[in-house]
């Protein structure tokens, strides 16, 4: 059964330096509040996993939380580059960043394998690309047809973190809209944290929704606006101006540092 706890407590108790941590949300329900709490608690040496690292990962990387990034597409969606990610890869600032990169299909299959507790996923892919040599992918032969396919290692994070719209008092969670790999990361991780917009009396079944039972979650934390400046379907839209503004903020190390000081480090965790 999930415990409903303050976000600062969930991060303190469940995320350790050196952990493999996946903050997911496929450009929707991005767990910004949880990412900021990781930064405030100065977690470091993390292996950060995420299909689409965007601004929150730029912030985590720029603040020195990460040792390694496992990803399939790292950019500022609809805007351009992630300058902190680029600075880490291109110049080793603030620290060198090891990369393990996949294709979306490969990474989705890896999350799926993780949730199903099998050690690898199978895709038709990678063949003929330079990715094949640069990432953890292997070839596997079909025992029935002899075809060769790509095998990707299952993603089994130490901690999976997602944001959702609602939980009930018992810690059951429901999210809806674009659901990405949220279910897979929660089920495939050793420990999980779900931040939610609000606690409601009853989770109404909805179209296109994902239900995560309390007994499959470690901790639920209330974090209204926890996906801002990104989307939370039914709650708020993306602050697109901010995403555009981030391009300028993140280009310069010092400007970035000031911004993080003021908007993240000096902020209190979301009160509960």
């Amino acid at each position, binding site marked *: 059964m999930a415990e409903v706890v303050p976000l600062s407590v969930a991060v303190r108790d469940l995320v350790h330096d050196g952990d493999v941590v996946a903050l997911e949300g496929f450009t*929707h329900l991005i767990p910004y509040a949880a990412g900021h709490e990781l930064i405030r608690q100065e977690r470091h040496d993390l292996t950060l996993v995420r299909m689409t690292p965007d601004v929150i990962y730029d912030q985590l990387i720029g603040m020195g939380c990460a040792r390694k990034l496992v990803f399939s597409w790292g*950019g500022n969606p609809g805007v351009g580059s992630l300058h902190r990610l680029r600075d880490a*890869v291109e110049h080793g600032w603030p620290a060198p960043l090891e990369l393990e990169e996949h294709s*979306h299909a490969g990474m989705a299959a890896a999350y799926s394998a993780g949730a199903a507790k099998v050690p690898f996923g199978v*895709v*038709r892919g990678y063949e003929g690309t*330079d990715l094949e040599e640069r990432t953890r992918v292997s070839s596997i032969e079909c025992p029935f047809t002899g075809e060769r396919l790509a095998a990707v290692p299952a993603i089994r994070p130490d901690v999976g973190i997602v944001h959702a719209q609602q939980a009930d008092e018992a810690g059951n969670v429901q999210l809806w809209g*674009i659901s990405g790999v949220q279910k897979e990361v929660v089920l495939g991780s050793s420990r999980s944290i779900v931040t939610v917009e609000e606690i409601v009396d009853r989770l109404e079944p909805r179209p296109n929704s994902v239900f995560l039972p309390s007994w499959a979650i470690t901790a639920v934390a209330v974090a209204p606006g926890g996906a801002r400046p990104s989307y939370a379907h039914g709650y708020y839209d993306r602050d697109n101006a901010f995403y555009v503004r981030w391009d300028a903020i993140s280009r310069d190390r010092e400007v970035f540092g000031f911004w993080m000081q003021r908007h993240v480090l000096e902020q209190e965790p979301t009160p509960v």
Partner: protein
Amino acid sequence: MTQVEQATYTADEMMAVAAARRLGNGTVCFVGIGLPSLAANLARATHAPDCVLIYESGAIGAKPRRLPLSIGDGELAETADAVVSVPEIFSYWLQGGWIDIGFLGAAQIDAHGNLNSTVIGDYDRPKVRLPGAGGAPEIAAWCRETYVMLRQSPRTFVEQLDFLTSVGHPRGSGGAGVTCVVTDLGVLEPDAETGELVLTELHPDATVAQAKEATGWDLRVAGDIRPGQAPTAEELSALRALEAA
């Protein structure tokens, strides 16, 4: 007359129109944000109202009333026939072979439609670290055809890619690979025998010389090169309605 028309649309608009015209009614498209999304929605707003839009975020049959800001945009989920998980969209739908046309952009393309969206420079010491593969390798491999939309320049149309992110003519995937490259100057299509990209269409006022100059390899020109048609008033007004929404 040509001068007047030329002033009335941008290169991006010409690209969107040229791509949109190639989409049939009922064509199932796998689209990303930006020009591909613009092109597919333009097709839907004009000659192909039943063109099916699938976004890699899992939205199947999305009918956005405004252009989505990102693939996570609520407008996609709100207007889709169904929203499925990301593992499902890639395994059952894309790898499953249900997509007619996939769209890709890139930082570099070579003469065989291979694309680079990973790094400029050496992988371990990159000059520019690009966003990475995303859905590109699978889109190129598993769609029946892949359309690339990319402005033409010697920096982007290169002899040798810095990194091969997606394969132009994948073997044994069932798909034909890159069958059409829409640029700001015209359209390139693969030679039926060699697979080499050949200039087959020129946008109004673009010249073969310009196209050759903007290409890092020795660009071949089709014997029966077609003159492209400028956007019609209807296309432009549909485009601008989309952009303004």
